């Protein structure tokens, strides 16, 4: 457990020191959202209706960039091998890095939400807490398998193509549930289905945060 915290501290220190890159990630998310708005056109009805979709598409695309970078830091200069030689247990490395990715995705999400509200003139019918929960659970759903897969393919040649391809099947339930929950919070939830969507997201996270933690050791040692 303490190993996880220390790896997390390390990663947050690295991200803090390379703040410029995190700002670049944010601006990337912003440009994605603006491009969607331009693509859909000025009529606000469509924008308002699909605000949730734009938020999550922006987050999804940013997450691929983020995941690739956080693993490159470990593998490019051979730091991962030094971590293993400390020795830091593989579960500590996985959970530390996954939580660091989660925090950064939440930051990107937190900064994207206001922009979505402004650009898409979205409304907020349900209490804000639901939206925050959705962003957190959705980001967690992207972070766990993302950290796992980016570590698996870090040393492969075709990794730029492989990461989105590998993540796609896992992202579908996250995006489906997160976009639905977000849209329900924005446009009203007459039959209060948000709870079931968030439970689905929570189950997804439960499965993958534990499964990836168990398998990560084998992946790193191979």
């Amino acid at each position, binding site marked *: 457990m303490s*190993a996880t915290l220390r790896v997390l501290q390390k990663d947050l*220190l*690295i991200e803090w*020191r390379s703040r410029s890159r995190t700002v670049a990630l944010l601006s990337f998310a912003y440009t994605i959202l603006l491009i969607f708005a331009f693509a859909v056109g000025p009529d606000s009805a469509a924008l308002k209706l699909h605000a949730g979709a734009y938020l999550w598409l922006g987050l999804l695309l940013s997450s691929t960039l983020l995941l690739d970078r956080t693993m490159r830091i470990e593998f490019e*200069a051979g730091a991962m*091998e030094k971590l293993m*030689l*400390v*020795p830091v247990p593989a579960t500590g490395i996985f959970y530390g890095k996954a939580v660091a990715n989660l925090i950064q995705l939440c930051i990107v999400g937190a900064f994207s939400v206001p922009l979505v509200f402004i650009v898409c003139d979205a409304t907020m019918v349900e209490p804000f807490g639901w939206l925050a929960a959705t962003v957190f659970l959705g980001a967690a759903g992207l972070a766990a398998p993302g950290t796992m897969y980016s570590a698996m393919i870090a040393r492969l040649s075709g990794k730029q193509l492989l990461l989105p391809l590998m993540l796609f099947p896992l992202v579908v339930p996250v995006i489906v549930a997160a976009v639905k929950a977000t849209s329900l919070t924005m446009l009203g939830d007459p039959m209060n289905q948000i709870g079931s969507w968030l439970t689905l997201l929570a189950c997804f996270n439960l499965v993958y945060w534990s499964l990836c933690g168990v398998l990560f050791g084998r992946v790193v040692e191979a």
Partner: protein
Amino acid sequence: MRAMDTLVQASNLGRRFGRRWAVARLDLSIQRGERLLIIGPNGCGKTTLLRVMSTLLSPHQGSIEWFGGKHGTRENIGMMGHDPGIYEDLSAADNLHVFAKLSGAGTEEISGLLSTVGLDERTDPVARYSAGMRRRLALALLLQKQPQLALLDEPFAQMDPGGIAQVSSAIQALPGAVVIASHQVQHAAPLCTRAILMDQGQIRWTGPATSAESAWHALHEERGEL
């Protein structure tokens, strides 16, 4: 008492990559406090042997045992490999700070370590350091760990003369056993007690470090390269 002193015992060790044996039929034992020099042409398996000894690579043949198989291996092994194993976004002091925290060691002597390897406490990230300075940082990380078994792959590479002197004194100060794989025999030999010459993954000669130079020549004569 002999078993107690053997830090690494490798018998008939083999490791291959695809069809080629990088290391084959290798018997080696390293005692506490011993300083072993590994020399040999490029691609003779020096790096592979070091990586196997560091537990990062598992052998395909034979066996290898650390510290008589008694206590933990990885926390007592320090490796300075080709990759510096550092975080480029952090400064040298931060790198040492991070790894100290990760291993639960104290962070007081970080500035001392930096001066022993000739690095100052500048705060700009290691990404802007020269190759030589990165290797000094890698050495500092190894010194910080004070390992029972220190494995150094080309410690003198890309080092200026001042650096070589600092690396030599730092190596001499290391407590446990030290294994150095190096081409700069003139710098490495004085630090070591024993030497082995490897060629195509096998040990061709073993003897005192003082005659490492002549062993090197003998191999070249045999190959007709001189």
